[in-house]
């Protein structure tokens, strides 16, 4: 791994951890770490209080647990494919450079 890649990984880690350190101890009840999507719909309701969403999702995850299950599933599907691609090609690359 090149130095460039190490620095890139460190950058990703710092960017992820920095907000958690900055707002350490604060939770969703204090208005932190909610979703930006939700914040936008709150803003819409504030701008036009009489607006009624005219369509409801026909199915919603019944609880936060089920929602996190589906999110984990989504990430897992993606990760399996990425892992397969790189695993297969890494082995092929190593095999070819040995010969």
């Amino acid at each position: 791994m090149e130095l460039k890649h190490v620095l890139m990984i460190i950058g990703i880690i710092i960017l992820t951890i920095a907000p958690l350190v900055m707002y350490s101890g604060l939770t969703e009840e204090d208005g932190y770490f909610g979703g930006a999507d939700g914040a936008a719909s709150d803003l819409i309701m504030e701008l036009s209080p009489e607006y009624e969403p005219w369509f409801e999702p026909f199915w919603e995850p019944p609880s936060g647990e089920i929602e996190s299950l589906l999110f984990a599933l989504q990430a897992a599907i993606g990760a399996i494919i990425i892992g397969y691609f790189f695993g297969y090609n890494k082995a092929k690359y190593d095999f070819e450079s040995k010969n």
Partner: protein
Amino acid sequence: MHIMEGFLPPMWAAIWFLISGIVVIYGIIQLNKLISEKPEIKPTLALAGAFMFVLSSLKLPSVTGSCSHPTGSGLGAVMFGPAITAVLATIVLLFQAVLLAHGGLTTLGANIFSMGIMGPLIGYIVFKLLKGKINITWAVVLAAIFANWGTYVVTSIQLALAYPIPDFGTALSNFGTVFAITQIPLAIMEGLLTGLIWDYIMKLRPDLLSKLGIIDGKLNNGGAQ
């Protein structure tokens, strides 16, 4: 990035559906053409789709104190251009709308337009402008940063168009604060991650990238650089 179900007035929902529909159909035609001409690029297609799948499931904290997720569309945009990326984004957005109630079916057109079309288009243009001028890894990093950030800017514009209260400019700066500012650090993060993935593909399978016409075909098989 999603506009929630039912939160776009029917007229705007219809307009975005129409525009996105045309692009996605064009993308499907392009995709079929690409697959029949170069079937060996299929794994990279799967990779670009999977990258979007993973990244859009990760809700990350931002320095503004709210959470949002990356889009992962920059990688697809660089490799396949915006139309094919729009098809991949449609799959991701359908999954989230149907199973997670994130985004929605009425707002699907608008969400495809911002995340699947405009974001990748901006990323693609950035990549084309920078390619050959700077190191290709950094061109990809910047393309991914702008694809991500552009998505949220476009979403802010879409919401300000639908809710120009009290006027378009004020609404745009309000929605922009919610979306575009929150997104800056997340966009940088996504750019770095896309750059890492890109370098790894370039090391392991430069032949696939040269087949797609993104890098010169001078690299022989197995050769890192």
